[in-house]
């Protein structure tokens, strides 16, 4: 076949060879390339333009609720964007401050120019990582390896000029560029992003290989000139002081707290609604049926679905020196002159100048159920996918997949087992499991509500969950970060042990810290860790009352804060531990990846076989999350796993997840945990946590 170009002897002899080749320089591509290089693979990053590496194509912000969790996790794996954000932000704010640390959303407005500059600096200075400007048109393929699923394997890429590059693994992170189409009003032209060419040859190659392709849409708002906006009547939102950094490595962010910029809030009026309603016939993007995100809707769809009300518009700065304002909430695809009318109907924007119109993008994505949890495709060996091409939306979702794909592409080259983050270990695990098990019909965004073990998977403990594994199994974490995480973990364990061993009677505690309203019906004695659970208590209060041995714990501010959080969630985390272990046991029961569900000799209905075949679950755990799979089918599959025990044995030994589960911290050190958790529920016996349904 035409795309099998590996046979050309002349090309093969002259072609350069890399461990990992990454196509695409967006958030997924940069993280993937850097992670592969950190892991020790000679890596090549191919992008249309080096100048657009680190481009933030849409909103000038990173993080948020759920997304902040992802950022923390990819930082714990030594990913780039957390660190780069700490050097590029102009407005840092922790969302959900009053709702509890498990759902805090670290977020920042980012200076676009600085981010790009800092990201390019990182990428261009990463050892083992080379960057070339080129487009990828085709893949080099050869016979598949016998021990893996897949009908062929990739051995390299063919560039736009016809030259070839050989690679041990290839990662595609083409974002919205696969048959990308930009829409403004009734106009439509091929582009991945306004002004950039789409990838069509590659889209054809993937389709020829038999990948199932779907189509999604997204959009971006117009941009406004800051000096034409009247901020005087608008609601101001100031940044946090002090700002909280994203990275576990950053002591502080680069900007002085007082130099941070503010955001402003304004609202649409009924006039805007009128303009949109009157001109629906001029709006192709809205009329099309392609699925867009439910949660990041265009102003048009907001007005249509929730009529006759004001809709929020946040005016966000794009940079310290930039004159551009990003009106979040105003994504539109109307013809530009009508967009201007809508803009001028909004308070504060009456005289605003539109620098660039909003537009919609429609693009191809690949059904992510065609991927393993390592993000390697099941169809073509050694070919990995990450980012929007897998049906996600958002920088953080893309970057998180990039890190995982980069790590696994590198491990694959080194012949090592894949690095899988379980749903019980991280948001990134939930993200990838949801995608690869259930697929998606709209751009997938991270929400905390998707996460079963939200109390355990917190922004504060991402390092405790992932850094050790990243260092030991993936080799993608620097020695410095590893040491730091180890130190913190040891300090936390010691701190918790110290707090638990410090026991006084309730009346003594009430004397020592009268500001904490300790219930007199609680069982005596209570440990300092129990007392720390009270909302009014913190390490400072405790240390004032009992300077020895608590004084030194309270002095280390970060440790003190983390101890307080551990105390707050101890009950919940310990109780969820059992459920977590249940999920993990099911995840350890792996199904062979090349299983032919229509042929296997197990008592399964045709409907169940079809579901299993299209979802291709990798573990019994994943099977149980597919809607409509019966307990009987699960047991029949279990039997199958057992019959094929020999074959799955070596696979089963691979993932080492769970060693660093947050709950383990308590169970190993503290013997009295059960009593404590029972005691905390003073009035009635503790209800048991229900395990996930069979």
């Amino acid at each position: 076949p035409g795309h099998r170009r590996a046979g050309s002897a002349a090309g093969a002899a002259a072609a350069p060879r890399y461990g990992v080749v990454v196509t695409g320089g967006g958030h997924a591509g940069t993280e993937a390339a850097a992670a592969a290089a950190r892991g020790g693979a000679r890596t090549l990053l191919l992008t249309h333009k080096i100048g657009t590496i680190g481009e933030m194509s849409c909103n000038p912000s990173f993080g948020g609720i759920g997304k902040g969790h992802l950022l923390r996790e990819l930082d714990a794996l030594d990913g780039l964007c957390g660190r780069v954000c700490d050097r590029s932000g102009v407005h840092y704010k922790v969302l959900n401050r009053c709702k509890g640390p498990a759902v805090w959303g670290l977020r920042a407005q980012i200076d676009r120019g600085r981010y790009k500059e800092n990201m390019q600096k990182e990428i261009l200075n990463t050892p083992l990582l080379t960057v070339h400007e080129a487009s990828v048109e085709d893949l080099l393929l050869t016979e598949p390896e016998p021990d893996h699923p897949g009908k062929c394997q990739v051995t390299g890429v063919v560039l736009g000029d016809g030259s070839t590059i050989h690679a041990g693994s290839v990662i595609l992170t083409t974002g919205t560029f696969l048959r990308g189409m930009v829409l403004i009003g009734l106009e439509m032209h091929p582009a991945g992003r306004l002004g950039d060419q789409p990838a069509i040859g590659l889209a054809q190659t993937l389709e020829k290989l038999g990948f199932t392709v779907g189509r999604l849409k997204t959009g971006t708002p117009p941009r406004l000139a800051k000096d034409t906006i009247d901020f005087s009547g608008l609601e101001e939102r100031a940044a946090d002081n002090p700002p909280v950094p994203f990275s576990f490595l950053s002591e502080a962010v680069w900007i002085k707290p007082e130099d941070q910029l503010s955001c402003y809030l304004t609202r649409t009026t009924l006039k805007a609604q009128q303009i949109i309603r009157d001109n629906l016939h001029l709006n192709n993007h809205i009329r099309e049926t392609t699925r867009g995100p439910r949660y990041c809707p265009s102003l048009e769809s907001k007005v249509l679905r929730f009529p006759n009300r004001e809709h929020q518009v946040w005016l966000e700065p794009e940079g310290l020196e930039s004159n551009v304002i990003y009106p979040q909430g105003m994504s539109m695809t109307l013809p530009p002159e009508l967009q201007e009318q809508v803009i001028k109907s909004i308070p504060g924007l009456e005289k605003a100048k539109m620098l660039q119109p909003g537009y919609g993008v429609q693009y191809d994505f690949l059904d992510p159920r065609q991927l393993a949890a390592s993000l390697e495709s099941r169809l073509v060996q050694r070919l990995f996918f990450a980012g929007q091409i897998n049906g996600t939306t958002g920088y953080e979702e893309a970057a998180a997949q990039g890190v995982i794909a980069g790590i696994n592409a590198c491990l694959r080259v080194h012949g090592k087992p894949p690095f899988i983050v379980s749903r019980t270990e991280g948001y990134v695990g939930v993200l990838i499991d949801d995608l690869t098990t259930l697929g998606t019909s709209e751009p997938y965004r991270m929400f905390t509500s998707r996460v079963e073990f939200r109390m355990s998977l917190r922004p504060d403990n991402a390092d405790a969950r992932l850094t050790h594994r990243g260092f030991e199994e993936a080799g993608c974490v620097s020695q410095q970060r590893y040491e730091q995480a180890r130190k913190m973990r040891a300090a936390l364990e010691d701190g918790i042990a110290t707090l638990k061993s410090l026991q006084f009677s309730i009346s003594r505690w009430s004397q020592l810290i009268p500001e904490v309203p300790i219930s007199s019906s609680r069982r005596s004695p209570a440990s300092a860790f129990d007392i720390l659970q009270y909302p009014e208590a913190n390490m400072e209060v405790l240390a004032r009352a009992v300077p020895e041995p608590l004084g030194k714990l309270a002095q280390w501010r970060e440790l003190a804060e983390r101890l307080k959080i551990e105390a707050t969630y101890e009950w919940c985390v310990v109780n969820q531990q059992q459920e977590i272990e249940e999920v993990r046991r099911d995840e350890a029961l792996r199904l062979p990846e090349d299983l032919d569900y229509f042929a296997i000799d197990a008592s399964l209905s045709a409907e169940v076989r079809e579901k299993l075949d299209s979802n291709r679950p990798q573990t019994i755990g994943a099977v149980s999350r597919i809607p409509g799979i019966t307990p009987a089918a699960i047991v029949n599959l279990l039997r199958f796993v057992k019959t094929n025990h020999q074959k799955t044995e070596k696979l089963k030994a691979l993932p080492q997840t769970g060693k660093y589960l947050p709950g383990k911290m308590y169970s190993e050190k503290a013997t009295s945990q059960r009593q404590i958790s029972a005691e905390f529920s003073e009035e009635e016996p503790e209800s048991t946590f229900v395990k996930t349904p069979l």
Partner: protein
Amino acid sequence: MALRRALSAAGRRWAQRLCSAARGDTIFAVSSGHGRCGVAVIRTSGPGSRGALQSLTGRPELPPPRILALRRIRDPATAEPLDRGLVVWFPGPRSFTGEDCAELHVHGGPAVVSGVLRALGRLPGLRPAEPGEFTRRAFRRGKLDLTAAEGLGDLIRAETEAQRRQALRQMEGELGRLYQRWSETLTQALAHLEAYIDFSEDDNVEEEVLSQVDATVRALEQEIGAHLRDGRRGELLRGGVRAVIAGPPNVGKSSLLNLLCQRPAAIVSPVAGTTRDVVEVALNVGGYPLVLSDTAGLRDATDPVEQEGVSRARDRLRQADLVLAVLDAAAVPTEPAGLGAALGSLLPPATPCILVLNKADLLRGGGGALRDACARGDPLPPATLLSCKTGEGLNHLLELLARQLARLCGDPLAGSPSLTQSRHSLHLGDCAAALARYGRERRRDLGLAAERLRLARRHLGRITGHVGAEDVLDIIFRDFCVGK
């Protein structure tokens, strides 16, 4: 009274200590037949088995492993005696599941069984087993060999199917509608709270959403609490295997009912479509409880009253544990394949069935071919020729019926109302407890409060069905205009 309270508090603490000493949860279920059987066996598996046995027998020492011992069984919460029965202690790994197991052989009456189940459910760390859970645990510990596991899927399918039918029956009535309403209320409250967590600051999810959730949760908690305290427990469910007589009009279904209950319970006439509503009688066949329903003949009726009757008949069929399919012997194909097809068009798939070929007295030449087809069985279900008029074939039918009932009653889950009721009240109790805790956590940490709602939702989901993250997101995007 005070003494009793003190005793019960002490008992609870003791039970708590006993059961929480080990890790992992412990499951329990009735593992014998139901109904008026002499002895019911209740089995537990998991680390809490030891504590459960100690609490229920009120003795710290366990009987020697794998040896039956006679014990007084009491409710540890109230110290109330429940029964005197035999108990067995199977320390792991030498047990059915490989875990610590205990068995309580108690008197089979529904009151005793549900009393013991309720007492077990109140122990910390114990919960009712899910379908197939005992076998799954055994599987995990390598306690089932492959031949044993072979039939496992089918077994669990049968269990699940029985539970589905049972759930369907309960969801029909008042009680079902009540549970369904609670489920919707709770799911919406959870979705709104999740929306408040995931969106409020950037978007239009207002503070007042939260106070609405608070009020909803408070009201729901009170309502469930009141329901649990209500001794009547809603509808009374009648025990027994639910058998439905079904078939085309005028084949003698009502005559069969009257014959079986030996009284004219249903009106019979030569006019097709006489029976409009469902007629129900309780019988005892071979010692097994049986609730027999006569239904309207299945045909495309034009009369609205008959249409309703046919639709009720079809509802009953879907919920049936056993179907007595009646056909006119003189009007059916005589070869098995044709008979099977006639039957297949009548029945929901996978329901146990007995084929009754009525009006045998009208057959010319004794109906030799039909008799052969009935005797051969496969692919037909157990079948018999019968004449309701002469009574010929009745003994054979009763024999078949008793055999089917024995099989069905051996299935511990088929239609046992006491078991279902105690399951329901356990889950509702846990749900209400989680809702109560929501109120307390609300002031401390919204994440923890949401966790309580999720837990409450999961408990209720054990009765009304699982609700996933996508369902919650659907409500969020339906009710709020969120996004950038």
